[in-house]
């Protein structure tokens, strides 16, 4: 008898989930938090690069350390013949080895993580400190990136700021 009662009541135990708050993260209306309510991603997150051109010594170690051949050292107009790393996000695997290899610690992977476009070309760009300006933004907008194109055998900045503004 008791067995029958228990079996009859059992399905109704599911009702207790009615009052529980769902743990769904309602992106994009809600911040993604961890179990203690701290926002994610944290500073350790390996996202899109920034590179401080005032510190960069054009050593090319980041390009040597890259397992994906994502970084190319290119010469940019207006930099006095110095080479700067250009990152292709069609290759980058966000391992952070470039950051480890950098002797001046000017290359840095931020916690910016979302980047999308309809065209594969804007995924190749020069990381500048300018990207820091939208570090807290939800999405990296390709219109703000520093894009470089080859014209007559010379690399020319076609979009974005080649140099950060001096404070």
């Amino acid at each position: 008898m008791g067995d029958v009662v228990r079996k009859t009541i059992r399905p109704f135990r599911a009702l207790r989930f009615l009052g529980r708050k769902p743990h769904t993260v309602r992106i994009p209306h809600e911040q993604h938090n961890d179990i203690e309510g701290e926002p994610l991603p944290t500073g350790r997150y390996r996202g899109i690069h920034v590179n401080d051109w005032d510190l960069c010594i054009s050593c090319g170690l980041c390009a040597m350390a890259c397992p994906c051949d994502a970084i190319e050292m290119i010469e940019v107009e207006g930099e006095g013949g110095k080479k700067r790393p250009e990152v292709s996000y069609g290759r980058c695997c966000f391992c952070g080895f470039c950051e480890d290899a950098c002797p001046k610690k000017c290359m840095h992977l931020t916690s910016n993580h979302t980047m999308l476009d309809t065209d594969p070309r804007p995924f190749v760009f020069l990381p500048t400190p300018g990207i820091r300006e939208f570090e807290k933004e939800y999405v990296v907008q390709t219109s703000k990136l520093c894009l470089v194109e080859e014209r007559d055998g010379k690399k020319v900045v076609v979009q974005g700021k080649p140099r950060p503004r001096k404070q």
Partner: protein
Amino acid sequence: MGDDFRTTEIIFGPQHPGIHGNFAFRLELEGDIVRRARVVPGYLHRAFEKLMEQRTWMQNVALVPRICVPDPDVNEAAYSMAIEEIMGLEVPRRADHIRTVVLELSRIASHLMGLGGMGGAIGLYTLPMWTNGERDYILDLFEQLTGGRVYHIYTWPGGVRWDMPDNWPRKVNKVLDHIERQLPSYWSLFFESKVTDARMVGLAPYDPDWAIAHGVTGPNLRATGVKYDIRKDDPYAAYEDLDFEIPTRKSGDGMARALVRWDEVGQSIRIIRQALEQMPSGPYRAKTPPPLAFTVPPGDALARIESSKGEYNYYVVSKGGKYPHRVHVRGPSFTHGIDVLEQLLRGYEISDTALITATLDVCPPDIDR
């Protein structure tokens, strides 16, 4: 069509909702019954072993976790252990304990996903909804520790890459408490269900002798009663200092395989709690050459790790210099995902195909590599 027009050959996968990952079968059916099954792997082939020969020792650390997607940390750890053995590197105790925590968290995440897959295969879609939700808290933890959600690139030769953040152990304990609180409702949802009993008890059983003769390892072997675990028998990381049990079951059928995985989640929680409690202080990585000048002396080493799916083996051969000469990866699914699976499927209905694959926890990326 078969020769006598009684059997039909159908292509099951790779685009099929019952397939876990990118994987396919050719099934010869007689009515609903599988008369002969052939596995068609290779859809995820990326030529890892070839690519590893083209990259430096340290660059490969970024490559190896991709070999097993649900359980990536075993690859980094096994690769690092093999290199450490050739180089004679002594790993600090703290690094060993951190590795243990990471490996066990990864095991829980993988088992939760695997149990969800079993639930999905019998049409119980609530279970994957829940387990994958809990798994996500573990991914949050990984993100705070390693900076990556799925691919961590955290364990490397000589130790681990960064130390733990100060508040991380507390968060781990909170997540484990949360998962422990949830486990009873999973139990009543999945294992007390009559559908689970009807579908999984007596499903594709094998006995220990047959399993060993066919190279079955891991939870699938322990489901037949063989008390064997590399963590105990060929210990690595900090498992020697920790107290845990090896869960086994007797019957070797689908239910036993699910139950062994279920028990392992509980044991992993126990291991992580102990490892965090006993966490020694000190350095978290040994002194190694800088990544760009990282060379390994000539020699070879075999590293073995117990992953959530079975036994992982990394056989690393070095000729000296900056690049490995050969790295052979023996994934657990290479045996139980092809030859064993083909034989187990025979005689069962086509609707059991996905479930048998799920109870064996076949991981296609480590077959194809």
